[in-house]
């Protein structure tokens, strides 16, 4: 909300410095997004055109004698066309400083001009919001007054952010009240007595029928003797400084009162109301109305309207209709100051994609009492403009004070950690307009002011006390936390995984959870590219690999989403791997795969304390011949392999890519390893080479060797594979190193040789292995 400081100053004494005011507002909970400073303007005063004549030497110029309240009038030549004798205007006298120029004496076609008549633009106001030419001031202005001071044109305008719980403070009164309470200076609000209270209307005032539960209160007031004209200059200037375009005196009064009191108003042309009734009701399906913005709107039962007997006249709390718009022919109006269900207004606003200053206030649920305040303020302004105001009529709920809230004095300290005496609490709450009953010294009975709907429980009041006392006065204390049983295990596991992978040379990335494919859809995506929740981390990582010109090693830990019979299933996955340049090696060997497998084994070992078993696996999107499955206790824990080159190409990834996918919940808990004392006796080894069928795996051979030799064997590792014409089609040669050792004595060569012949026999029996020389 744009708040001219000059407007605030009418009601509260404030420091000179705009920054100090902004800082205080921020510390009250109303941050100031911007302080808009005004340019320096001096020497512009009010004046009246006493006489106006044609310039003797120039057709386009006129020469005015201007009364500035001094003895001698000023002679001012002007090219403006909207001037006439008797007008009250602003003139810049000799030496005056305007944003763009300094006024010096000058001679215009032989006439010495002693100043310049001023347009709104020259006062740094939006020129297009004011009359063309010279700005017209109010006829009853005293002459010779400083215009800048009169209109508060030199004080900054604050752009204040107001939280949704404080619609009462979306107003000058509200913010003035807050500042007065905080600075401890008095608040000078006008007396809100409706000037029409004693005048009975002449009888044609429409009756209001509230037919919807969503209209809580409706104040209507008949006002006669109005005529559409420009509003007084001071009012137009205030609106303009507040960012509201002046329209005409009636519209401007309703906007002015909304900005000042926070209560949106609506004025109906009294003649347009058919049937003598204003009815607050739900819209009817298919019903149409033209709103003030000229748009024809088709309503539904969701809409809340104010209608006459025949047609809707106004969208409640949102925007008026064209048929009852005030215009040049208007002579009498009916004022509406109403209170609606905020949620209903918001739903209608959302449904019609229409938001106004009025709806921004109504949708936050205004206080009932603001209706009477808004009506009284508008009636007073209209009366000042010459209208005849009649008695306001209120319908719906009475605007009574809420029940008192019991506030335990001890609770203030309990929640804030700041000891405050009952007197201090009472003082702060009273400054905000609360009434406090101190009869029970331990528990205050606090009645919130009628304009505050957000104060309903003791905690609300404690916040008010803290705001006025100042949050900065609350001491900073480090709490001591009592022991509890809440587990950090899930986070700790994820963290350990991340650090192991960091150590293995992988960089963590975070890719998008919302993608163009998946099995779970979001209803309101930002774009088609983000319609689905990912069901795998693989596509995001492949895209990432594709975007990088060089090979990279990455991992991601994140949630993926699928559905099963019970609905949505969310899982935490880890995916790591790399893109790599191809290596020149035979098709039956892939060192990148082996590197990935090594990292997978290391990771699983560090996380679970155990060594995983690996075997051939399969996974959609992975290379059918280069994919493995890792298991622990027979339970699948990891799929790893080369990405299917066709899938990679679809994402423009030309390099081979290798990924390992682990569902984190499938990992067994860490099992503490137990130390095994190594043999004190030296070991020996024998290398053996066998030729077997190509589908016999290295792991098969290792396992068979261990099984055949028994406890004498302390290791069996295949270290070489060879295929080629010498070996024969469908066969391969595997070389393994067998480590042999005894725990009770040094193993002899004879024992080692016996073990070898034992295992060779076994390999021959089990796999038809041929022994290579």
């Amino acid at each position: 909300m744009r708040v001219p400081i000059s407007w605030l100053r009418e009601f509260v004494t404030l420091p000179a410095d705009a920054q100090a005011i902004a800082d205080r507002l921020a510390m009250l909970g109303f941050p100031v997004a911007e302080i808009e400073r005004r340019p320096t303007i001096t020497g512009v005063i009010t004046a009246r055109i006493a006489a106006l004549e044609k310039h003797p030497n120039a057709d386009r110029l006129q020469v005015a004698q201007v009364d500035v309240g001094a003895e001698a009038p000023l002679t001012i030549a002007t090219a403006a066309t909207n001037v006439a004798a008797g007008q009250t205007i602003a003139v810049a006298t000799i030496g005056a400083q305007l944003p763009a120029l300094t006024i010096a004496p000058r001679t215009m076609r032989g006439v010495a001009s002693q100043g310049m008549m001023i347009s709104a633009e020259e006062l740094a106001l939006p020129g297009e919001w004011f009359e063309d030419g010279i700005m017209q001031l109010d006829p009853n202005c005293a002459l010779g007054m400083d215009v800048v001071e009169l209109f508060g044109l030199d004080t900054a305008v604050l752009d204040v952010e107001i939280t949704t719980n404080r619609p009462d403070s979306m107003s000058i009164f509200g913010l003035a009240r807050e500042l007065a309470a905080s600075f401890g200076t008095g608040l000078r609000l006008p007396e809100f007595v409706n000037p029409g209270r004693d005048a009975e209307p002449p009888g044609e005032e429409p009756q209001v029928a509230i037919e919807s539960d969503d209209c809580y209160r409706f104040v209507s007031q008949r006002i006669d003797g109005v005529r559409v004209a420009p509003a007084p200059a001071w009012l137009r200037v205030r609106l303009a400084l507040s960012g509201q375009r002046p329209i005409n005196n009636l519209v401007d009064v309703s906007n002015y009162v909304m900005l000042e009191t926070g209560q949106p108003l609506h004025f109906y042309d009294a003649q347009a109301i058919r049937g003598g009734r204003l009815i607050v009701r739900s819209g009817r399906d298919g019903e149409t109305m033209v709103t003030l913005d000229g748009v024809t709107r088709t309503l539904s039962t969701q809409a809340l309207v104010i209608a006459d007997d025949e047609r809707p006249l106004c969208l409640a709390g949102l925007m008026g209709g064209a048929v009852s718009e005030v215009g040049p022919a208007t002579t009498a109006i009916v004022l509406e100051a109403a209170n609606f269900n905020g949620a209903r207004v918001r739903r209608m606003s959302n449904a019609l994609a229409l938001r106004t200053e009025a709806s921004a206030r109504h949708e936050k649920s205004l206080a009932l009492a603001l209706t009477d305040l808004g009506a009284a303020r508008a009636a007073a302004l209209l009366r000042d403009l010459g209208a005849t105001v009649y008695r306001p009529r209120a319908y719906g709920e009475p605007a009574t004070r809420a029940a008192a809230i019991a506030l335990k004095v001890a609770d203030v300290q309990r929640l804030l950690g700041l000891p405050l005496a009952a007197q201090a609490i009472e003082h702060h709450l009273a400054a905000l307009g609360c009434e406090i009953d101190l009869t029970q010294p331990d528990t205050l009975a606090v009645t919130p002011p009628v304009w505050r709907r957000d104060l309903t429980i003791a905690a609300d009041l404690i916040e008010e006390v803290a705001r006025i006392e100042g949050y900065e006065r609350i001491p900073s204390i480090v709490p001591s936390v009592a022991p509890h049983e809440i587990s950090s295990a899930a986070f700790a596991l994820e963290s350990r995984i991340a650090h192991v992978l960091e150590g293995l040379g992988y960089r963590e990335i975070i890719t998008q959870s919302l993608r163009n494919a998946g099995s779970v859809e979001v209803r309101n995506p930002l774009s088609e590219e983000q319609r689905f929740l990912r069901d795998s981390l693989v596509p995001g990582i492949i895209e990432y690999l594709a975007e990088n010109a060089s090979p990279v090693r990455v991992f991601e830990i994140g949630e993926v989403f699928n559905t099963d019979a019970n609905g949505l299933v969310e899982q935490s996955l880890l995916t790591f791997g790399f893109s790599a340049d191809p290596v020149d090696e035979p098709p039956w060997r892939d060192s990148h795969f082996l590197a990935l497998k090594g990292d997978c084994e290391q990771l699983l070992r560090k996380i679970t304390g155990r060594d995983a078993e690996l075997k051939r696996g399969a996974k959609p999107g992975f290379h059918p011949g280069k994919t493995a499955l890792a298991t622990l206790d027979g339970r699948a824990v990891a799929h790893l392999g080369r990405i299917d080159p066709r899938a990679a190409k679809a994402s423009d990834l030309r390099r081979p890519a290798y990924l390992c996918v682990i569902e984190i919940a499938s990992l067994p808990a860490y099992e503490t390893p137990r130390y095994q004392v190594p043999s004190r006796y030296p070991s020996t080894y024998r290398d053996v080479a066998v030729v077997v069928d190509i589908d016999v795996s290295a792991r098969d051979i290792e396992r068979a060797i261990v099984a055949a030799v028994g406890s004498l064997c302390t290791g069996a590792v295949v270290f070489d594979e060879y295929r080629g014409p010498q070996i024969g089609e469908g066969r391969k040669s595997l070389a393994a190193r067998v480590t042999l050792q005894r725990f009770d004595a040094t193993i002899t060569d004879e024992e080692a040789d016996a073990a070898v012949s034992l295992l060779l026999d076994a390999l021959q029996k089990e796999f038809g292995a041929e022994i290579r020389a």
Partner: protein
Amino acid sequence: MTELASKLDDVTQRFAAAVDRANDEQALESVRVAYLGRNGEVTAVRRAIGALPPGERPEAGRVINDAVAAMERRLQAAHGELESRAFDAELAASIDVTFPSIRRPAGSIHPVRRIIEESCAYFVRHGFAVVVGPEAEPDYYTFDALNIPSDHPAREGFDSFWISDTLLLRPHTSPMQIRTMQQHRPPIAIVAPGKCFRRDAVDARHLFQFHQVEGLLVAEGINFGHLKGMLTGLCRELFGAQQNVRFRPSYFPFTEPSAEVDTTCPKCKGTGLLGSQSCNMCGGSAWIELGGAGMVHPSVLTEVGYDPDRYSGWAFGFGVERLGLTRYEVDDIRRFTKSDPNFLAQLS
């Protein structure tokens, strides 16, 4: 005797010449074997003792032994010399130590995780647990239980991605407050980091997918001062010991009183100025907004079955990427989700 002496003399002289000629350990070993070995020349001389008269034999034995000892010393010295020559050669090598390193691939954790881990570690030191939960949440945990009923205007501030009528991607980590409080009795002391989603247009300051760190402390006697104490400590942990923290009144339906938390801009040290220019990190305001906080609303405590007259507590929620922008002086928040290798390398 004289004959033996001259023989011995001849052997030792030839031995000395052979040692001098030996250029490496192998040659030296050959010399040792040839002269001092079992069948070496000295042995041959020693055999001649038997031909001497018995009275001369002891003297001859002593002479030979002395000669052998001298030869062994000579060998030892030659070994030393060879070794020292080898060291000299090794030490004569010199390299350009500034030549580019050979590096194994560098791994790193994401800066988002680093901030989360450091924040959590701070809270864990103070007795908090770290809890994590689902990203797809029922609206009950996301809104209703947090005192945001369906018609509440504050729901507009959480423009969320909906999966069904009641299921959405969490727009904040606060559902973990409810989940934890429903599973445990006070004291509750948790931090809940995690990914969140809001339908925000993406720009240099906004992501529709981002991370939060949530904190919750509920027990008897917990007050706003404890919130200030812990969050001041957190800011000092993340940004340095000089940090100050400011609490401004604000509004959240699930806390009362509520606060916005700011910390002094670490870039301009809370002055708002970099040289004579306005600080581009804080926009000259000297403060950086961290997020929201406040005392847990009595309705939230009641919802999870805690007596608000007995228990009180506070909660806060900070945006992790926002912390990252300030901490690492990053120009554009989108870099955190793009995660390009250069970005990751610089911040690791």
